[in-house]
């Protein structure tokens, strides 16, 4: 089989069928999600409650609440643990996603009347829960990182949001998701500008320690720039060539040097997603060797972001992976 695989330019890992994974490549999160699907929330609650590594806590809060609609267990959990920061945090994380479910992922002009009402209401509900979380667990940066998402939805502006970011960073200076959320708020599509977005990414990359996940912000910024070319500028030719530009590819490689390829690589649960983000860029940079290394480290689980930006995430991931593994 190995010989035949080689003939076909594939390796053994590629035979595993890719699948969209709401657990973002994390085994434990996958198992806990299947429990939650049965409305059995106690173990998931305990795991998040015990997590005092802030990156882990945020990762679990997000992945364990990524369900459509309002699962029954959410309010039950809060009712049972009304003075628990974790319970309020989990409900807030879900409310944020639920708000976007009402709004949809399209441009503002495509959002329906009722969608806006629900969107705003759910964001405000999330804010109430997040403020309560911050009150109950003052050391946790996660509620501040999530308040940046509601600030983005409520269009409060970068200046206002940077006060929230400062609170998150007081608790964890290199909180990857807080910085990534702030960067998203600074994108042109959310009322910022390309310059502002890149300034956040570069300022972070310049100061962040080697091996830290915050270096992914550079890759994410370039993906957002490319996305704007496709959907707002409608400049398909420029978008096609974007990642092949010398300065773009160079900056992404430099960020990978400081993170994925560094001996000081900090292995967090979010690493799987970060690999996907860099791999998405490597593929568009036509750097198939770099992409193959990451595919071999990743496995078949597909986080929705960033693969969904190119259409069907599974199809795109599969196509790119096959190309990369061919060498």
């Amino acid at each position: 089989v190995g010989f035949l695989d080689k003939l076909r330019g594939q390796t053994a890992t590629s035979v595993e069928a890719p699948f969209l994974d709401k657990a973002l490549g994390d085994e434990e999160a996958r198992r806990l999600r299947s429990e939650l699907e049965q409305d059995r929330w106690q173990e998931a609650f305990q795991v998040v409650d015990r997590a005092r590594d802030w990156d882990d806590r945020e990762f679990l809060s997000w992945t364990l609440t990524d369900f459509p609609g309002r699962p029954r267990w959410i309010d039950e959990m809060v009712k049972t643990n009304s003075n628990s920061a974790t319970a309020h945090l989990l409900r807030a994380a879900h409310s944020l996603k639920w708000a976007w479910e009402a709004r949809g992922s399209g441009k503002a002009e495509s959002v329906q009347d009722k969608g806006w009402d629900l969107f705003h209401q759910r964001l405000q509900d999330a804010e109430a829960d997040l403020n309560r979380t911050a009150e109950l667990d003052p050391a946790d940066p996660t509620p501040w990182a999530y308040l940046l998402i509601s600030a983005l939805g409520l269009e409060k502006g970068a200046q206002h949001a940077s006060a929230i970011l400062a609170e998150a960073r007081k608790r964890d200076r290199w909180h990857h998701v807080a910085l990534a959320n702030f960067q998203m708020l600074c994108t042109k599509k959310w009322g910022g500008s390309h310059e502002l977005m890149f300034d956040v990414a570069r300022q972070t990359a310049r100061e962040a320690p080697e091996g830290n996940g915050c270096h992914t912000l550079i890759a994410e910024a370039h993906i957002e720039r490319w996305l704007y070319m496709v959907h707002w500028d409608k400049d398909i030719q420029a978008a096609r060539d974007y990642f092949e530009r010398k300065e773009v590819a160079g900056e992404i490689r430099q960020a990978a040097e400081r993170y994925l390829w560094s001996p000081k690589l900090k292995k967090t649960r979010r690493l799987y997603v970060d690999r996907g983000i860099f791999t998405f860029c490597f593929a568009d940079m036509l750097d198939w060797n770099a992409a193959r290394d990451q595919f071999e480290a990743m496995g078949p689980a597909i986080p929705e972001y960033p693969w969904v930006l190119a259409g069907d995430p599974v199809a795109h991931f599969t196509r790119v992976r096959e190309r990369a593994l061919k060498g």
Partner: protein
Amino acid sequence: VAQVPGPIRAGLIFRVGFTDESLVNHGITHLVEHLALVGLGQQPYRFGGKVEGLRTVFMAEGTDIEVPTFFRHIVATLASLPVDRLQHQAGILRTEAATRQVSPSAVALADRFGTRGWGLVAAQEFGLVSVTADQLQEWSRRWFTADNAVLFMTGSLPERLELELQSGSRMPVPPAEPLPYQMPAWAHHRVPGVGISMICHYSVEAGVLAGVLGRRAMNRLRFVEGLSYEVTAELKRLDLDRHHLFLWADGLVEKLGAVRSDLLEVIDQLADEGATPEELKTESDTLRKNLGDPNFAVHQLDLAATDDLLGRPFPGFDRRLSEIEAMDGKSVGRVLQESVETALSIVPDSVSMLDPRFTPLPNWSTDQVSGREYRLRLPGNDMRAKLNRLVLGDAGITRTLGPGKSVTVHFRDCALANIWNDESWSLIGADGWRLHINPADWKDGSQISETLERHIPAEIRVAMGDRPVPDPESLVVGPPHKAASGAFFSPRRDSWWLLVFIIVSVRLWYVFDPNPFRSGVNPTASFLSGMIWVFGIVVSVASLYFLYWTYWLKRRRSRS
């Protein structure tokens, strides 16, 4: 008086500036200054006047006949201002203001002081609209007096120089009182560079600090990094004890992030290490060289006269030189360390501020008043009606523009109320927040007018005339701001309309031709009937396919 070769150069300085004004009469000193110059027209000598924060200066450069003539004219017109020229001069000043750009340093002062004191440097001169002839005369009588003035002059004092100013009293310097924001702070503004404003106490070290900081920043940003063209460090006196130190560097939009980082690094390095002996020597050498220049004496006279007027005797540059020569570079660093605690950085929208020391200034009011809530005079499904709220109470007024976004003006802190001919109000708070309210935009708007009439004191009201047409601040004029489903036709609804059309069409065909496949007498009619049905089926299939693409597929995509 100092002996300097060349024509006589003289200045008459009064201890009155825009920091003595309020937002309502802001510009009144400027108006007095302009009216005092009325009648001079064009002269064969150089002359002029200017209003600064703490002083107003009339200057002239000419012969021993021209200069006294100029000052006699100024003194005479100050005693009896040509108020018949008030509107004419106010028009000129409004033109001057319209063409003048607010400097980045003024932007920083406005952020720091709001609409009082030094914050007025960036404010519109509402006094040009509101001030009456009597108020102008009164202002002149109060501030432009012999006891509140100092004259300096180069050359010999002319024999017949008698300036008959009215007597009055020496006016104290108003303390510079910043708004109670947490510092260090930062704010976004439309500026073509990065500025860092700091407050430092009056000292020789502060003067040296400005020089060293400016040179270091210029060296790094322009000569080494090539990021900026203009790099300046400006020191301005705010009151008896405090100075405003403003460090500024411009740059291309894509380079401004690097400009910010470099400026902060220059500041941090100087604060940590202090000035080097070489830098102190450069400062003392520069001052020594200036002291050898006869023209520098004019600057020295100006400073000495101003210090005397402000109530702080000028120690003289010789003493300053010896102090710099004896200075320890570390003391410059210490002054900067203290100043950084008060830093306010202004950056353009393209630049972020992730430095954890800097807190953003609030870009929405942090408090709201309680009282009666008003809604816009618009249908409930209009987004403007959903997002906008007005709360009016006895303490003030809050307008909410959306969740978490509100602007509040407290009546006790209201610095100015502009009243327009359409009965709308523009309220400006002491902190700089501004609210425009047209009662006609709101349901039960007459109640809003009554409440504002009751709470806004007459002395802060300024009649402004007509609103622009169309009014950019109108909340109810313009097409409805409806969300997607508010439209009668939409991709989703179009699909359903198409389905209805197909059903109705098929039904109509059936009415006309109930038995299409029955072999009829007329074979042509039978053939046509069959064709209609075939066409109908094709259209139906195509429509369903269209429906699938526009609706179901879109829905599936949005879910994914």
